[in-house]
């Protein structure tokens, strides 16, 4: 059975966009070619995480449903790498 893709949802809300989501939206062009078939990147109008005090700072990204605060291209790539490692291949 084909392994499920890693689902990455990038918040496009105002605060996230200004604090780094603009760069994150280019993720598809930045990640290594061999990862491209393993990830599914989408933009979301707003994850509505920035209005909560206890979820951390913008920008927010959801990776396989798990919210990541203060996300950057590096931290998202690290997370993808981590998930791929646990799946036993990269």
């Amino acid at each position: 059975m084909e392994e499920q893709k890693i689902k990455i949802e990038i918040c496009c809300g105002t605060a996230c966009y200004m604090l780094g989501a603009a760069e994150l939206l280019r993720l598809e062009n930045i990640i290594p070619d061999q990862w491209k078939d393993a990830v599914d990147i989408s933009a979301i109008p707003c994850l509505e995480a920035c209005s909560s005090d206890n979820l951390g700072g913008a920008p927010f990204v959801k990776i396989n449903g798990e919210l990541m605060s203060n996300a950057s291209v590096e931290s998202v790539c690290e997370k993808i790498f981590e998930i791929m490692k646990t799946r036993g291949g990269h």
Partner: protein
Amino acid sequence: MMKNDSLFVEMECCQLTKDGQSACGDDFQWERLENENRNIAVLSDGLGSGIKANLLANMTTTMAMKFIRSNMDILQSAETIMDTLPVCEYRKISYATFTIFDMQIGGKTKVIEMGNPPFIHLRHNIEIVPQNQKKLVSERWPDREMTISELRMEVGDRLIACSDGVTQAGLGRREYKFGWQRRGELKFIQDLITREPNISAKDIAQAVAYEALSINKDHKCIDDISCMVIYLRNPRVLRILTGPPFRKENDREFAALALPESGANKVIICGGTTANIVERELRTRVEIDLKLVRFSKGLPPPGKIPGIGTVTEGILTLTRVATDLENDSWEDSPPAAKTIIEQMMDSDVIEFIVGTKVNEAHQDPNLPIDLEIRRNIIKRLQDVLKQKYRKHVTIKYY
């Protein structure tokens, strides 16, 4: 019977300046007197060309607008205009033509003309010849005859007036011995409407002006060209939902305003949270094409909700829209701002549905720029859309 309050009067003019001149020698002014349900548009062609002609034309439109608005006697108004215009030092005369459309929606429309090519009245794309027309001549200015026509406008009717730069286009070419003339212009407009029955006033004005230019020898602008069009029609409504409602219990009612059956021709949703509310309440999905990111030029890419309309980010995008409208420049705008502006330009009525709940994250001191408060941007947009683009704007807060 016409339903007056739901009709829209589109008034547009396209002007091309004579080659080599820094100002157009024709002038156009318009005014919408909301309380009187009345719309006035004036086109004037000043003697000669360039700055001098522009000054004559501008003085004429300004005075005519003022006199007509205050219902002053027409003959007296015309005499005052002619008395006031400065005398050309070469030609020893003062002169500027004018065409005035004074339209009372649901009532009479008065057309006052002096010196311009006779206006065109179209209904179902057929020319209506004015039945009620009289001539007025001032004793002091016997060579300046005025024509006053009274008519009734019906939904779908168009009025068109132009400067002689249109009717005399092509002069000097063998096939246009006497120029394009009014009948050439009329046929061109009727062909346009046959092809596109709901064509806007703006598109007709532009098409006529550029056709006149193309008819001219070597496509040169040998005289100032102006075409003014009035189109009485049912309004095209663009509804923009932005910001979450102050009370959550109003979310459903708010979101329902995005539905096609709610009366708007087009809908735009500006704001991430707003889009989430519409998604949740109408059980639909926003689609954002990440391929557009490459062209997004500093704004989040636009998306869409199938069957509903466009979705964009909120504050940054609306601020950019306001700035671009104020500067009259959106050719190179980011796609999100450009799509909003283009939809605004294609609409007559713009309804802002504004949720007033404040997003605290927008007050974060870490944000690189100060974010404008939503209500202030909407106010800016209202001002520029009304004053500069003659749009009818309504705002409803939630």
